[in-house]
């Protein structure tokens, strides 16, 4: 590389120590026989030192950090991290499915509802809150197992009225058994009370 062609384009990276391999070897060989390029490397070294000295010295800024963390928290609420998205999507999907189920139960079982003004409906009625994470299929199967239908709801607090066709009104023992079974349905029912 000695001679007319000087490796000017590589010298800055020789000066900052990042040149490697064949390029490094070629530049070193050239420098051994070229006073001009050695002077250039010296100049680049000086320039490098002064660029370092002229750069702003930024100390860690705790006020800026606290601001960043506040923004990060707000951002997390508005735009959840990727790992949270599936969980949120699943929760939303569960709620949607639950609402669809309730709607389906309401419309398909509507004919068995007592007409208004007929008096106390037959069967035991419970006030029930379903687990928000419960899959629709589990809720449906649970209600079918208990010969139960949703007859009202949800209220503003998310409470449904569920009638148990298998328990006669006034049969306190059957009502207590059913209530105990609903309360024990972990993952499906979060709260159950006799109406």
């Amino acid at each position, binding site marked *: 590389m000695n001679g007319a062609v000087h490796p*000017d*384009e*590589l010298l*800055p*990276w020789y000066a*900052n*120590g*990042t*040149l*490697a391999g064949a390029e490094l070897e070629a530049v070193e060989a050239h420098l051994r026989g070229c006073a*001009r390029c050695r*002077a*250039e490397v*010296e*100049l*680049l070294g*000086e*320039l*490098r030192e*002064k*660029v*370092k*000295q*002229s*750069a*702003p*010295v*930024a*100390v*860690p*800024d705790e006020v*800026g*950090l606290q*601001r*960043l*963390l506040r*923004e*990060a*928290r707000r*951002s*997390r609420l508005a*735009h959840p*991290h*990727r*790992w*949270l998205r599936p969980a949120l999507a699943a929760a939303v999907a569960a709620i949607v499915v639950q609402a669809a189920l309730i709607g389906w139960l309401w419309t398909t079982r509507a004919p068995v509802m007592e007409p208004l003004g007929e008096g106390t409906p037959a069967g035991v009625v419970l006030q029930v809150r379903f687990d928000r994470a419960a899959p629709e299929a589990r809720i449906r199967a649970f209600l079918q197992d208990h010969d139960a239908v949703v007859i009202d709801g949800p209220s503003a607090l998310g409470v449904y009225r569920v009638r148990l066709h298998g328990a006669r009104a006034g049969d306190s023992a059957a009502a207590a058994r059913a209530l105990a079974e609903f309360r024990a349905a972990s993952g499906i029912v979060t709260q159950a009370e006799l109406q």
Partner: protein
Amino acid sequence: MSAGTAADEAILLAGIARGREQDLAEFYRRYHGRVYAFLLRKIGDAADAAEAANEVMMEVWRSAARFEGRSRPLTWVLGIAQHKALDRVRRRPPDRASAEALDAERLEDASAGAMDLVARKQDAEHVRRCLEQLSEAHRAVVHLAFFEDLGYAEIAAILECPEGTVKTRMFHAKQGLKRCLGRLLD
């Protein structure tokens, strides 16, 4: 200038991707100063650079999950800073942008012998003033090569340009600096 091993920092980024605020804080302490220095070189305005540095850190928070480990975390975060700086420079009013730079590519070459003397005699303040007169693209290359001590391939990755462009920009930036320093000595 090393802020920790690349592996340490990749672990930090993985923590940030999981939403760990303490990892974001540690990343900030390690990198904020270097990101700010790079942005200030490119943008030239301290308030703008500080705001852009904050935007970079927020981008790290939002997109750490996209870091794939194919580059060093430093390269990745400076690449984000490069985009933020370009956005800000593009949004500037035209008069401010055009008044900013004396493009080194338009400068005459300088006599190497005289410039050796110049560069050695000038203090860092002169270098800073001359850097400010270079175009934003040339300042960025000089900063990354001489402040961050990065190789041309890594600089090309940050600036998203060919390696040959990095070398050419450095060559012209060096010529521009020599010329400017020569004028200051006169």
